[in-house]
């Protein structure tokens, strides 16, 4: 049973567009929701993360929107650039730093010039 469901599997946008990637979770005990960015040939790197006591978090052009009642969270990339082309993974964990991350299946984003 997949505990974190991510969509879409792939996404193509034009430069300047706003791609949105969605994730849904089942376990209400989850208390930490990060997004990781992975470029080809590299390991994932933390992009931005949110805890369930806030509904939105912005860091630069990246925004997480969090809907606790719907058990959903999403990543928005403002003014997307070709350099944002990568695979994005959402994840969830509980227990603060003691919990293991459970990853979604990933979304391959391509930003066309």
């Amino acid at each position, binding site marked *: 049973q997949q505990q974190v469901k991510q969509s879409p599997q792939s996404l193509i946008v034009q430069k300047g567009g706003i791609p949105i990637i969605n994730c849904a979770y089942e376990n209400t005990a989850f208390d930490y929701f990060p997004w990781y960015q992975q470029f080809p040939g590299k390991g*994932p790197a933390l992009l931005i*993360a949110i805890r369930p006591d806030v509904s939105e978090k912005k860091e630069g052009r990246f925004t997480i929107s969090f809907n606790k009642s719907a058990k959903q969270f999403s990543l928005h990339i403002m003014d997307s650039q070709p350099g944002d082309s990568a695979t994005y993974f959402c994840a969830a964990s509980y227990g603060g*730093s003691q919990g*293991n991350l459970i990853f979604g299946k990933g979304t391959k984003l391509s930003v066309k010039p």
Partner: protein
Amino acid sequence: EADIYQTPRYLVIGTGKKITLECSQTMGHDKMYWYQQDPGMELHLIHYSYGVNSTEKGDLSSESTVSRIRTEHFPLTLESARPSHTSQYLCASSEYGGSGKRNEQFFGPGTRLTVL
């Protein structure tokens, strides 16, 4: 600067060989992880460790084994490699324990293993 190293980056090996994938981190992190990732797919946790002499199995069953004799070092071993073990193996580390600690995992670049 946070650094986590994996060697080798690429390995092509024949069936039945014993292999060890190396992972080292310089951040003093107590918790370390091994993930298996097929191309374009999600990460599956196969092993993790809370510190020296601690090893735990992850969500995905794996024939590999791990050891943690030193805080900074977390090698993964396959006693007899098979084609089904062909995959990318990613090592990661994070802080552990205490209030306010971040759960950010830092990943190495991965080892791409091909078993012929």
